[in-house]
């Protein structure tokens, strides 16, 4: 191979090759380069489990009331009568009194 000729051809080629990538393409690549990698899947799974446990703990019913405590204390003081009635209704099987279950008065705010 004629090295000199090859070099001259390469130089000539470079002189005539001026096209460049589109600026939008540049932006896309640089944006991808700036993005931080996502956490490892195991770390993501750990975070998900911790969140789930936190939600479950938050939604758990309060600790059982001791047998010695009076039942009345289950209804917090300060609740108005309407709300108390709703609480009481929810403790009764609604299917036994279908007509009453549909009474708007039992859903509070109408008194």
């Amino acid at each position: 191979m004629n090295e000199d000729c090859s070099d001259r051809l390469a130089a000539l080629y470079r002189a005539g090759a001026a096209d460049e990538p589109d600026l939008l393409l540049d932006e896309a690549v640089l944006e991808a380069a700036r993005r931080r990698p996502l956490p490892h899947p195991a770390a993501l799974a750990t975070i998900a489990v911790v969140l789930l446990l936190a939600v479950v703990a938050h939604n758990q019913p309060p600790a059982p009331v001791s047998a010695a405590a009076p039942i009345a204390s289950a209804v917090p003081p300060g609740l108005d009568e309407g709300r108390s009635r709703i609480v009481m209704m929810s403790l009764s099987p609604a299917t036994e009194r279908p007509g009453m279950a549909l009474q708007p008065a039992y859903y509070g705010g109408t008194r």
Partner: protein
Amino acid sequence: MQGTVAIGVLPVGGSRTEHRSGLGAVADEALMLRYGGGDNDAFEILYRRHRAGLHRFVRRLVGASADEVFQEVWLAVIKARKRYRPDARFVTWLYTIAHHRAVDRLRRNGQWPDEALDDEADEAPGPFEAAFGGELADALQAAVQALPAPQREAFLLQAEAGLSLEEIAAASAVSRETVKSRLRYATKRLRAALESYR
């Protein structure tokens, strides 16, 4: 806004990022290692150095899908940032990735020959004459474009990326002798295409 800043540093010459970070004289390999360590400025400089040449290389090889392949190559670089080891020159590594992506694309389109059909199979004169009405450089561009893909790639790796025979061999996963042969045929054809300009 961030994107605007990034675009602003791309033109050739001393860039704002280069000036700000003082990384202008740092070797490609060190920049890539710095990028792996979280330095985004290092990547911007690396990208600015190689974007034009790599894009031309890919475009001359795969044509219309060049932007897609170009992006794939850089995304592969980005993805590999943590495990990058400077065993070879960065540019060889970069064009090795580009070779694989481009050849995959060409194979899918039936435009990359089987090994058995390589090199000597294409001795017939190409359509160079069509380009002879233009300037010499334009004619050469057209002649390069008309080379068989493996010869075109070898020529571009030498002319565009400045790779040595050994580096071209490594990048395109062939022997040094095959590279020599491809370059010999490419040079022969390009010379023939430019004969009428003498």
